[in-house]
């Protein structure tokens, strides 16, 4: 118990030293180059660019198969300015584990300076994380590798044409959960991935939204500062897959937070901290009406969504009260 408390204290002291980024003085470094093939208004490549900016050049990135990999690496072009590897759909967490282990060995053998911090970051989609890659994520988190896993969640298998995933929200129309005459859209609630990740007792886990770019960058940086796994669940709008205007993509990311659908919080060493308390949430309809994937929702479905969103938010508030930070 004492060891855990000491780890917690030391880690929070380290995190306190980090002042945070500032919109006026963002680092100039770009880990990602323009000329990539993402759709207009893509809300998934934006957090990727911000994360690399926050991490700096001493970074090795691993991608899963998905939109971000496809748009960034059509031979002979690559948008990656940091070393990057893409292996397969589900195993980025294991590949990152191998890279992290290799770096540890190279440091022990003096091939890399022990003081040099090399970030190992995974960019994975929701399909690759919630579904096919869950085992690999769980294993890497349990083994405690010092890496950052960023789940860019656009709530469906977008790259292959908008099929549902475990992250698809209730009621959403996708090609494999279509809004039909009898069954109207996705029938299950979005999988609680943060709950699964937090259950692994990792030092840092957080949710982030590209509509709050400085907050997102701060969280990625914090995840890199802790010694052990850091996990960021990023809400990543997809105008193409969600059926919203390209200029509205970041607006949906803002409304998702302001309607309590995707609250922004951190879990630092098991302690819940809600970053933005939404005491007066905006109506959920404001978020839903921007997206064609929710166009078919019946009043009953919308009622259910409202009730459930509020319930989940209240659960989160309770968690922050029970397992919150004293200081």
């Amino acid at each position, binding site marked *: 118990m004492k060891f855990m408390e000491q780890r917690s204290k030391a880690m929070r002291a380290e995190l306190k030293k980090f002042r945070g980024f500032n919109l006026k003085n963002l680092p100039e470094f770009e880990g990602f180059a323009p000329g990539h093939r993402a759709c207009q208004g893509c809300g998934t490549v934006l957090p990727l660019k911000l994360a690399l900016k926050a991490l700096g050049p001493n970074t090795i990135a691993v991608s899963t198969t998905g939109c971000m990999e496809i748009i960034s690496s059509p031979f002979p072009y*690559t948008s990656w300015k940091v070393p990057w590897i893409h292996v397969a759909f589900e195993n980025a967490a294991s590949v990152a584990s*191998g890279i992290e*282990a*290799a770096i540890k060995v190279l440091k022990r*053998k003096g091939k890399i300076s022990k003081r040099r911090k090399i970030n190992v970051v995974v960019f994975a989609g929701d399909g690759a994380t919630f579904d096919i890659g869950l085992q*690999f994520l769980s*294993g890497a988190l349990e083994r405690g590798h010092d890496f950052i896993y960023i789940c860019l969640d656009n709530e469906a298998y977008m790259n292959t044409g908008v099929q549902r995933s475990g992250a698809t929200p209730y009621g959403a129309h996708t090609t494999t959960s279509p809004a039909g005459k009898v069954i109207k859209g996705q029938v299950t609630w979005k999988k609680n991935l943060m709950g699964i990740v937090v259950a692994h007792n990792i030092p840092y886990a957080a949710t982030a939204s590209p509509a709050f770019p400085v907050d997102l960058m701060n969280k990625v940086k914090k995840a890199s500062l802790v010694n052990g796994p850091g996990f960021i669940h990023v809400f990543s709008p997809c105008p193409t897959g969600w059926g919203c205007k390209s200029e509205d993509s970041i607006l949906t990311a803002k409304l998702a937070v302001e309607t309590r659908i995707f609250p922004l919080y951190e879990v630092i060493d098991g302690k819940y901290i809600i970053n933005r308390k939404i005491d007066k949430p905006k109506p959920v309809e404001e978020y839903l009406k921007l997206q064609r994937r929710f166009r078919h929702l019946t009043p009953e479905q919308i009622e259910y969504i409202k009730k459930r969103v509020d319930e989940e938010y209240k659960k989160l508030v309770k968690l922050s009260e029970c397992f919150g930070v004293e200081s």
Partner: protein
Amino acid sequence: MGEKVAKEVSIAIADAVAQCKVNVISAYPITPQTHIVEHLAELVNNGELDAEYMPVESEHAAMSACIGAAATGVRTFTSTAAQGLLLMYENLFIASAFRLPIVMVIANRSISAPISIWNDHSDVMTMRDSGWIQTFAENGQEAVDLIYHAYRVAEKALLPVAVNIDGFTLSHVIEPIELLDQELVDKYIPPLRMKYKLDPKKPITMGAIGIPEIYTEAKKAQDEALKASYRIIVNAWKEFEKLTGRKYQPVETYKIEDAEVALIIMGSLAETAMNAVNLLRKKRKKVGLLRFRLWRPFPMRDFIRAIGKVKAIGVIDRAVSHGSTGGPVGIEVRSALYQSNKRPKIVNFIAGLSGRDVTVEDFIEFFERTYEAISKKPKFSYEIYGAKE
């Protein structure tokens, strides 16, 4: 020179891997290779081997971690069998296409269903197309020697190597084995230096999309690399002979020079077959044996040269290729011979599936049936031998 010590072959293999100064080991248990990864865990935790030991959560993760570590420029190892090999299947092709020098030991075991832990070659025969260099060991000493060889070849050719040992019948037996002295190992396997690796000082992109305009070229480049590795493999064995006096060649033959009939067998069953050869030779029958030590790249020239004037070949497969024109080795042998001028008759048996004993008497029967084939063409292109009717 080291001295011969009685050791379980799995333990000796783990000791050899440790001697090769491996840096990252990803381990997942599966019968019958588990003793290898267990002993490596002991060596690491006792401080005798400075390596990162990753107890991964599946074989797919094991190979993924090896790919990540090898891409960062360190020496890696993993070990698996049957279902485990099949689970890491997509990564096998990626590892060879990425030209990563990963070394893997496969303790050959039957693949499900029915689930079976006993020895045959059905697991490794599924990876013929994977682009890996593949070798087969016949006994414990050879298994250990193939490990040293594997690291040297993998890192020179920049291709992954799979060393195959028979599960249980080789992995779990105690044999007299001599490990090389550490100085010789260090001389034989120089430190790994990879030109292309994940390094923030020289960022590169690994795993870009192979659009139709480049995929063919990428595959050709990979194929040429595997074919070119033959020279590296043979030279590495020549170098090994200078260091130890033990001679290894791509194709191993036994009394085949004047043989009229020969059997082709892979792995440790070859030792039983040799007894049959000796018995028949006493009766003045001109019989011989041929074994592939190097399976991929297929040693076409060595094979064609080795079979000499043999009139009939009996190929003993230890895996089934359902609905095909033969067992896996039978298919390759027929295909190789068809491209040469030699036309021995070929009989193909599938035997020794899932640990079923293949005795000296069985081998004598194989020889007799192959003799028959000289005058009478066999009715079936392959036969699953010994199935109870």
